[in-house]
């Protein structure tokens, strides 16, 4: 039984090529791996190696022939025996198709195949069929915020620490890793006291080596541990962004659901004060762009505690964008032991009928201040605290815009492709007919952060700018 040798595709784009030279002649013995011919592709001259063994009985395409189609027979081999030589090329019985058969056509045992596929992917819970999009935005009425009962004043810093402590007590797989998190008690004192309670195995000081320790934490998460990686600030996560995106966010998909990555990346995001361009950047837009990541940005102590707890429990990689200026601010925070804020739910911090202001992180402070100012002028603003950047609570936003008919977004990030852009576009897609004015974005100026105090102030959004924006959309 003979085997046909086919014109191979030697690059992803090759459809035909020139048979430049035969290195074996009719009658020659051929072993696996022998170079039998040279072929000029669209990119280069390549060598063709034999896969099957036997004697070259016939050359079908003379050397020098141009335009030989991929998969057309170029020679015949008299099979030297062996269990598998017959079927080595599907053309052995002359039924060789010019092009690969459509995959589904030649599948007598689909059920078996599906079962096989199921067997490989039994470890992680399978993701459910989901399609994102703004189509259903606004259809569901926003669920009311749960009342968690008594509260007590607490700083954002304490709330973050408590969230980690509670989850670490509950689950030994949770640990904290980062620069200065242990003995120094945290560069911003977020991890104060955690080393004392949990010891050096679970509160781990790393060297200044973001790329390395992020990769290490992601690898640990792939085995089922639940790392919390603290970046002193998110600016330094740029050193490690490949591991966050290419390894943490994509592996579940690339593994067909086998290998999840339950990990939290957290730290201070955005501008602090007078630390200039390299230390004052908002990463919300960067990380929110990536399927496979969740991104949250707490504003209050309750947000911080509830969202961080949810992030640690989440089986997916979650980015927690904190704000250094807010760390020392005090808010009332529920004292209930099981208090948690679900990821994906925005919170209406202030109700109003005239305009919807969507903000996140420290911009919520500015938006609320603007709303106070606007109220004095007779404009009632509704302020929505996003809390979760991805997934975005489109329902709450759209429901609000359908009542107010006006949208202003506020954030400290740069204007180009920022979160306000996404919010506005989703509103346009879902509630265009309800809009009485084009949405307006108030955001950081499109410049690297300057150092000089006056310039820095100019670079960041202000309450006055928000008030102006609201007046524009309300035509006041």
């Amino acid at each position, binding site marked *: 039984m003979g085997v046909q040798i*086919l014109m*191979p*595709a*030697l*690059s*992803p784009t090759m459809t035909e090529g020139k048979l430049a030279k035969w290195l074996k002649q009719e009658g020659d013995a051929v072993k*696996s*791996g022998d170079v039998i011919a040279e072929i000029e592709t669209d990119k*280069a*001259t390549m060598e063709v190696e034999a*896969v099957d063994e036997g004697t070259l009985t016939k050359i079908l395409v003379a050397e020098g022939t141009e335009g030989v189609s*991929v*998969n057309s027979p170029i020679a015949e081999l008299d099979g030297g025996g062996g*269990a*598998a030589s017959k*079927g*080595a*090329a599907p053309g052995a019985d002359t039924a060789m198709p010019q*092009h*690969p058969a459509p*995959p*589904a056509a*030649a599948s*007598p045992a*689909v059920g078996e*195949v599906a079962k*096989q*596929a199921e067997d*490989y992917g039994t470890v992680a*819970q*399978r*993701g*459910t*069929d*989901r*399609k994102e999009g703004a189509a259903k935005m606004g259809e569901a009425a926003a669920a009311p915020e749960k009342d968690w009962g008594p509260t007590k004043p607490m700083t954002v810093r304490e709330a973050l620490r408590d969230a980690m402590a509670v989850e670490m007590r509950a689950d030994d797989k949770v640990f904290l890793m980062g620069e200065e998190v242990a003995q120094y008690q945290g560069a911003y004192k977020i991890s104060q006291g955690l080393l004392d309670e949990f010891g050096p195995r679970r509160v781990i000081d*790393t*060297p200044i080596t973001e*790329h*390395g320790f*992020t*990769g*290490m*934490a992601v*690898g*640990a998460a*792939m*085995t*089922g541990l639940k790392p919390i990686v603290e970046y002193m600030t998110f600016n330094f996560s740029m050193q490690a962004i490949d*591991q966050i995106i*290419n*390894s943490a966010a994509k592996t*579940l*998909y*690339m*593994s*067909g659901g086998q*290998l999840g990555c339950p990990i939290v990346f957290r730290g201070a995001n955005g501008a602090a004060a007078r630390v200039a361009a390299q230390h004052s950047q908002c990463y919300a837009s960067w990380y929110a762009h990536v399927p*496979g990541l969740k991104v949250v940005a707490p504003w209050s102590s309750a947000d911080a505690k509830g969202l961080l707890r949810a992030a640690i429990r989440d*089986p997916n990689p979650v980015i927690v964008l904190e704000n250094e200026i807010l760390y020392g601010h005090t808010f009332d925070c529920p004292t209930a032991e099981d208090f948690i804020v679900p990821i994906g739910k925005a919170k209406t911090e202030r109700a109003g009928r005239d305009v919807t202001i969507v903000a996140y992180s420290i911009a919520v402070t500015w938006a609320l201040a603007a709303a106070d100012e606007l109220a004095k002028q007779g404009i009632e603003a509704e302020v929505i605290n996003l809390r979760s950047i991805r997934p975005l609570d489109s329902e709450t936003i759209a429901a609000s815009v359908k009542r107010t008919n006006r949208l202003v977004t506020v954030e400290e990030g740069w204007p180009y492709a920022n979160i306000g852009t996404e919010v506005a576009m989703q509103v346009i897609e879902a509630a265009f007919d309800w809009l009485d004015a084009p949405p307006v974005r108030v955001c950081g100026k499109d410049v690297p952060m300057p150092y000089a105090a006056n310039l820095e102030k100019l670079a960041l959004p202000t309450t006055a700018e928000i008030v102006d924006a609201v007046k524009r959309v309300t035509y006041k």
Partner: protein
Amino acid sequence: MAQAAETAGAKRRTRTAKEAPMTRDQLLQAYRDMLQIRRFEEKAGQLYGMGLIGGFCHLYIGQEAVVVGMQACLEPGDQVITSYRDHGHMLATGMEARGVMAELTGRAGGYSRGKGGSMHMFSREKGFYGGHGIVGAQVSLGAGLAFSNWYRESRNVSLTYFGEGASNQGQVYESFNLAALMKLPVIFIIENNKYGMGTSVERASASRDLSKNGAPWGIPGEQVDGMSVMAVKEAGERAVAHCRAGNGPYLLEMKTYRYRGHSMSDPAKYRTREEVQKMREQSDPIETARKMLLEQGATEADLKKIDDEVKAIVQEAADFAQSSPEPDEKELWTDILIEEAR
């Protein structure tokens, strides 16, 4: 024969006794495993030529002794992670040829249901953590697997493979530092096949002895004849024992060679045909093992039987990879996030 390198952490070692690192049965198994990888890769190359495999496809032909020798040192629970030249590693860990081949053809029966491809396959059951397409990224991930062993206080080790090209990446050295600092049980294995794509190691690395690249951190290192499964096994046992004893990381530089191009579309003009031919004729790991087996009393018929069995497995894999359907269109939207039960 393994040649030890002098490092801060390890004294020069030489083989003192002529004890064989593998029994005849073990060598027979290694021969079979190497042959299966070789035949699998040849078949993959053929399917690529037929347009059934797309994109990048990096073949492991020539380097088989490295993974087969190292795998022989492992215990259940040990982990393996590598780069995109990963088919051999998967087969060595015991992953099924059919599931790997069907992933190469992008079918539902593949290990990643067709969503990962040649460079992205995983099997937690077999301790195989990928399959990573970004050069060097798997090195810190591999340190993370070892971290997990450290954290759980298990005696397992992580085999972290990377090429000599990747060995110049910064995160490799970050990982060396972290692993040495924390005494993580990780064996860093540099598969030095002499070329990072088209750039020879001499043109890419100022380091002339990569086994010493961990020396500043006190990581003991050895250069190993990666074309000899015996030498690999022998060095591997030493490295694994070092890690299991809690002594921290170990570095093995495998001197090996890939016969094929970097990927399928590489014309390999950066080296001569004679150079490749010489390696094939004088140092082929499978031929070497075959000769040793014959010297030890195996018959041609014994080996022919293995050849036939391996060919049948690979052919079955190829058939499965063509008959398995493409993934359901719904798969586009699955496995992006693990959804909580709703």
